[in-house]
């Protein structure tokens, strides 16, 4: 029972970090129709900036600068796509993000090398004991920050001018343009928001009990892809639920790997994809996806 509670808490912590990544992924897809395959390296970039700066300027400013620079870089990718390749097909832009990913991850791998970079977070390796349950402080912090940030995101999505512009533009870009909504601006902000969320996720992916930020962190971020797809790709709520499902699945598969050893070591890496496939078999559009996923 203790183990189950701990595993569920770990799963929720992992799921809320995935949610930060998956939300950004979905926001970009909703706004511009592009699947951003550079999301993992954007995340690594934000984390790298934080890791390099925290000694000099402190943890929280470093996180903010990391998020700001990741947002700027994401915005730059979007500007490159719309200004440089004006009128290009959405598929072309999706391929472009793969190119951006290759460039970014190559350079970041060179910078990071074989090291584990610490984030300088205040939680370190501390744990909190509630009765006989032990949870890493960094994970609790991850859940709290994710709940606040995601809450703010949904509030903005529901009530702010940007949120309404975003939902209108996603529903019907031409009709939104006729209302005077600037599609380029909505897309640019969407990319920036997604970049900032990814940088924030990097901090918690690299925090205890992970050994730190290294070049595989961007691959861990890939687990957020099945979360977004599971949720339906164009639904923010779906991305949130999908992330929690994937987080719990991964934590369960890792926590009970001895019991699951018949499936082979490393099953927890595969489990999210397995869940995704099973859900898509029953609901081909994902949990909350719109029926028609092709965009004009």
């Amino acid at each position, binding site marked *: 029972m203790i183990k189950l509670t701990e595993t569920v808490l770990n799963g929720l912590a992992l799921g809320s970090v995935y949610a930060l990544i998956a939300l950004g992924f979905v926001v970009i897809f909703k706004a511009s129709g592009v699947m951003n395959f550079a999301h993992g390296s954007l995340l690594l970039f934000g984390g790298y900036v934080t890791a390099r700066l925290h000694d000099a300027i402190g943890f929280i400013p470093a996180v903010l600068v990391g998020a700001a620079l990741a947002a700027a870089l994401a915005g730059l990718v979007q500007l490159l796509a719309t200004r440089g390749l004006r*009128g290009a097909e959405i598929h072309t832009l999706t391929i472009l993000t793969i190119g951006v990913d290759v460039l970014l991850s190559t350079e970041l791998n060179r910078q990071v090398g074989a090291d584990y970079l610490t984030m300088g977070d205040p939680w370190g390796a501390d744990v909190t004991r509630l009765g006989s349950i032990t949870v890493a402080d960094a994970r609790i912090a991850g859940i709290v920050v994710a709940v606040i940030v995601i809450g703010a995101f949904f509030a903005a999505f529901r009530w702010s*001018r940007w949120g*309404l*512009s975003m*939902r*209108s533009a996603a*529903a*019907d*870009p*031409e*009709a*939104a*343009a*006729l*209302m*005077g*909504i*600037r599609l380029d601006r909505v897309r640019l902000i969407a990319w920036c928001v997604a970049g900032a969320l990814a940088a924030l996720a990097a901090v918690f992916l690299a925090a205890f009990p992970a050994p730190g930020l290294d070049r595989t962190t961007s691959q861990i971020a890939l687990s957020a892809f099945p979360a977004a797809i599971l949720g339906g790709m164009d639904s923010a709520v779906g991305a949130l639920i999908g992330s929690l499902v994937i987080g719990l699945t991964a934590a369960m598969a890792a926590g009970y790997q001895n019991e699951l050893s018949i499936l082979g070591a490393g099953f927890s890496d595969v489990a999210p994809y397995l869940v995704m496939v099973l859900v898509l078999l029953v609901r081909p559009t994902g949990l909350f996806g*719109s029926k028609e996923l092709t965009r004009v």
Partner: protein
Amino acid sequence: MSPPETEAETEAGTLRVSDLHVSYGRSVQALHGVSLTVPQGRIVAVLGSNGAGKSTLLRAVSGTLALHRGTVERGTVHFDGVRLSGDAARSVAAGVVQVPEGRRIFGALSVEDNLRAGFLGSARRSRAELRAARERVFAQFPVLAERRRQAAGLMSGGEQQMLAMGRALMAAPRLLLLDEPSLGLAPLMVQRIAEIIHEINAQGTSILLVEQNAAMALELSDRASVLDVGQVRLEGSSADLAAADEVRRLYLGETYETGCASDANGDAAYATAASAPSVTGPGLTELGRWNG
């Protein structure tokens, strides 16, 4: 006669399209030198069949050509003496707002959010102004107030057309562009939409009305142009056009022989359309499509 006006005065609130050439891609020329004027406070109709260039003309005015990969090759669009350069947000800010063909409301959003979206492009920002704009629209369309929390996609076609018009009115346009507002609506609802267009105009908004329903358009409008393969074929006062043989034959579903004596009266146009099924001749097949 009023004293001679300066040029600035005559341009106030006037839409002036001059010698507009528009093409899609490299090869498809959609407009060949179209000129058209909508004076302040007037209703001007543009008639024409499918592919005549009506929607292209509206796109050039509302600044959405680029979304369809269309470009203005020659000619200009001016509103209120200011050149509209093909940027949709600028057209809206200048007071030119289009209600798109097929309504294109945001179906998954609530009626209220649709109206809020219509307010996004206007220069006004405050909550009080938003509320005032919404109250005006609710006064014009009480049904929208009743359904404000409902998902817009669940409303009937006529109600959706009202929402599309209400959404455009949220930006307080000085010129409203209407693209086929009667499309796919039952005859009674077409009559209701026509009344609403008349009311909106009576409150001081100029209207450029693009229609295939020529009877409705000619009844409502002061002047009209007939577009054909990207050129203005006929232009004149709506009463004159309603009486013109060519228009009657091509757009009102009549043969030369069955002309009605009181053409100048707008009601006659409606009566003609209503009695048209008994008329034989080349116009009949087209009429079926308009009423469809």
